[in-house]
């Protein structure tokens, strides 16, 4: 699966548009394709608990609230304790 730089762990975000490739040290565009073999960054959109309802928007199935609290696919989830790949 081809990943955008901004969806990889090797990408160090500088701003919304660009970041550093940690392996090469180069500044790269956030939306450019990352080289093959780069690691997937945990994000809600990759989580089994994420239920998308509209583009980039959904709910988090493990939310204890009723109705379930929103989630958005692009949120980074490295600190989410219940992220499920």
């Amino acid at each position, binding site marked *: 699966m081809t990943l955008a730089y901004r969806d990889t762990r090797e990408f*160090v975000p500088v701003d919304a548009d660009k970041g550093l490739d940690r392996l090469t040290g180069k500044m790269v565009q956030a939306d450019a394709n990352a080289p093959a073999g780069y690691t997937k960054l945990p994000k809600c959109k990759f989580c089994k608990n994420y239920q998308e309802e509209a583009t980039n928007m959904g709910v988090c199935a493990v939310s204890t*609230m009723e109705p379930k609290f929103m989630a958005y696919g692009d949120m980074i989830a490295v*600190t989410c304790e219940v992220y499920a790949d």
Partner: protein
Amino acid sequence: MARTFKQVLADAGISMDFEACGRAPETIVDREIKPEPHPRVEKLKNIFMQTLSTANNEFPYWYTREYMAHDSEIPVVRRARALKTAFSHLTPVIYPGEKLVMHKAHYFRGSFPMPWLSEGFYVAKEDELFQDALKRGSTSADEHSKFGSGGGNVVKSFNKIVSIAGKFGMRQEEVPALLKLAKMWVGKSVDDLGHKYEQKCPDYDVKEKCMRNIVCMFDSGYTLPQGREVINYYYPLEYGFDGLIKMATELRDKVAGNADGDGMVGTNRLYNYEAVILVLEGIQAWILNYAKEARRLEAIEKDAVQKKEYGEIAACLEWIAHNPPRTFYEAFQMIETIHLGVLNEDAISGMSPGRIGQVLYPYFEQDVAAGRITEDEVLELCELDRVVKTSIDCFASCGVVGGVLSGNTFNTLSVGGLNAKGQSAANRLEYLILQAGMTNPMPQSTIALLYDEKLPEDFLLLATKVIKTGCGYPAFMNNEIAIKFMCAQYGPEGMTPQEATAWAIGGCLESSPCCWLPLHLNGKEYMIPGGAGQPTSVGIHFMSLPKILELTLFNGQDQRTKEQVVPPHNKSLATYEELWTEFKNYWEIMCHALEKANNIQHDIWRKNNMAVFNSLLKPDCLSKGHLINELGYRYNATFNVESAGTANMVNSLAALKKIVYDDKKASLADIKAAILDNFGFKDAHEINSFSIADQQKREDDDRKWDKLHFMLLQAPKYGNDDPYADEILREWEEYFCEDCKDYKSLYGHPMYPCQISVSTHGAMGSACRATPDGRLSGTTFADASLSAYPGTDRNGPFALMNSATVWDHSHSQNSQLNIKIHPSAIRGPEGAKKLLDLSRAYMRKGGFHVQYNVVDTKMLRDAQEKPQEYRELMVRVAGFTQYWVEIGKSVQDELIARTEYEGI
């Protein structure tokens, strides 16, 4: 092409010179000193220079998710739970080469919206209710606030980046989440609740009209509810976070269910301590997430040096998450963490680190003595600190961040002053801090030098050397004057003269109350200074004095919008005394309306959005068990009244007094007609230049106003040591300083004057018609409170200083004087000495603040034409330094127009 203002005057034989005390060389002269930072710093700075301000939703997402799940919880605990969850979920990011780590959000210049404070902007955008929102006062300021077009500002959407408020970029994928989160706060945010209740005030209508017509600049009660204060790092440094949790737990258990004689809020202490514990746990989790990231990077890094550094970063964070720091490096990292933590807790501008050279000195002294660190390593850390502080962005609406702050966050650092024993507090670390300001010139931290006669001469000369780099800092602040102000304002709350010496600058130049506390390190005790007062960012902010004069002249009606802002006075203004009386009446009517509305806004803030982290850091919240909202701070009389456009108001009154009332050379009716016709000139907006010099005559102008205009321009002006104008300044200041005491904060304390313009002189000038001093419609006011209006100070800097000190500056929180000097005027060691003599002379006269822009005006003009070639050019705006390319055009134009001194 139409004739410019300058040409019109030249034709009439009038010199409206923007150069004084000599002539500038023909070619652009650069600043004399150009030092380099350490290579590591240079690399990170290069990243910064390419970075766009970026906002995301991570913090607001987790905050809102937790907050909404606990709607029946006690407010302070509910907020603390939300803060803990948000901090615990911030994604860590560490850039290669960093030593001082942690960021506000997951970007180099990251920040995020806080819809619990105000969500209307986003909701209005989505629902196309923008037009409706325009009727709300605070959006009017947005229209008159434009960010600089370059640098890190995302002024327009591009690619998948959406521009928010003309400043921040947000990923397109995040925008739906922002809107959904914002909608959850409709009717619940401090803005919405405040708005609901402020309407109950009988004079609410006046308040809204003031905002809409930009007589007042912003709703201080919720837009930036904290800041312009000095943080306090003492408790975590002394006890560590584990120690503080232990302390709060023991105190909580002791006070649970016990009113201790305070039937109103005594029992609240239980919940307050509970909140403190929760927030501290959140901060610890945030630090440990960074430690984990550093360990991950250590494990995968191939470069041995970088790998070792990641290991050191991890070890440092793992230690300070729990314990008091042991070394200079650990202490520095801890104060950076605390600083960013407080800034993430609330929308804050001007959370100043204070006298960190004195706070960190114990660690510096012991590490250097033990050979654990070299001075060069310390210098590198001080340079890195400048990258950290300059990368801090504050997310607020365009009107506040652009119009008021020029994107600046005022993390001002103070050096010098006196120590707890009354001796010079300057230490070796402070020399290195000053040096770092020179070797790595970046806008933050702006440096304030607390000038005292006891400071060593070489320290002061080093400070002037730094000024000569053109970085716009350090500013000279008068220690003696500030101490007098502290004792008068905070004496009733128990401040002693000895405690007053701990003061520092919070924000750009707001004197803030601080205190001394005993730090223990390896058996040695050091008294260190730190903040002990509430924010000074709340009160009546900012009042446009020339606009109030316009209302006075036109019977309460704004001449731009034709709205009746205040009730008509129906006076003929037949005498100068009558004019002055009506001016004061209008001032008071509007200040009272704003006082009440802002008190209500901030009251909502304290009930639902109170500071927990910042509170626990400030004496005496931990020992009292009360946070900021229950007067837990040692000093609470910090709210103030802020003015803008002082020099234009004084010059206008002087012109009216001279031409209409004393010499009777023109009638008031003539002057009013000329004002409405803008003296035959186009409006500044038409030509998109806000400098007086560039204004153009209308093609159809028949020159009927020229004679009157010249007369008004040649009337006595402030800044020339001319008693005619200076007496008007004195009378205003004496009235202003006394009148402020009539306005009371929600904490029941009298307010006081705060005389800084920040960048409001641009936005407020933009909304003000021509003024009787000859200033033209839409042009920027004079900056600061005691800077002369461009081109009007013709008798040299000492005359300007004489004019500025006709009143007692210790009756005000501050005053502000900025002077532009051509680099060639202060060349070499002799030049530095002259600059010091000039500054010292002003301090000895009783001036509170002076600062210099050492720059060639021609360079500024060139930079306006070719911003891409001047990414690193820094200028002093009002009380702060900013990158030229990141400030709005109206303020740029005013900086170009300021009188340039070619010699001193």
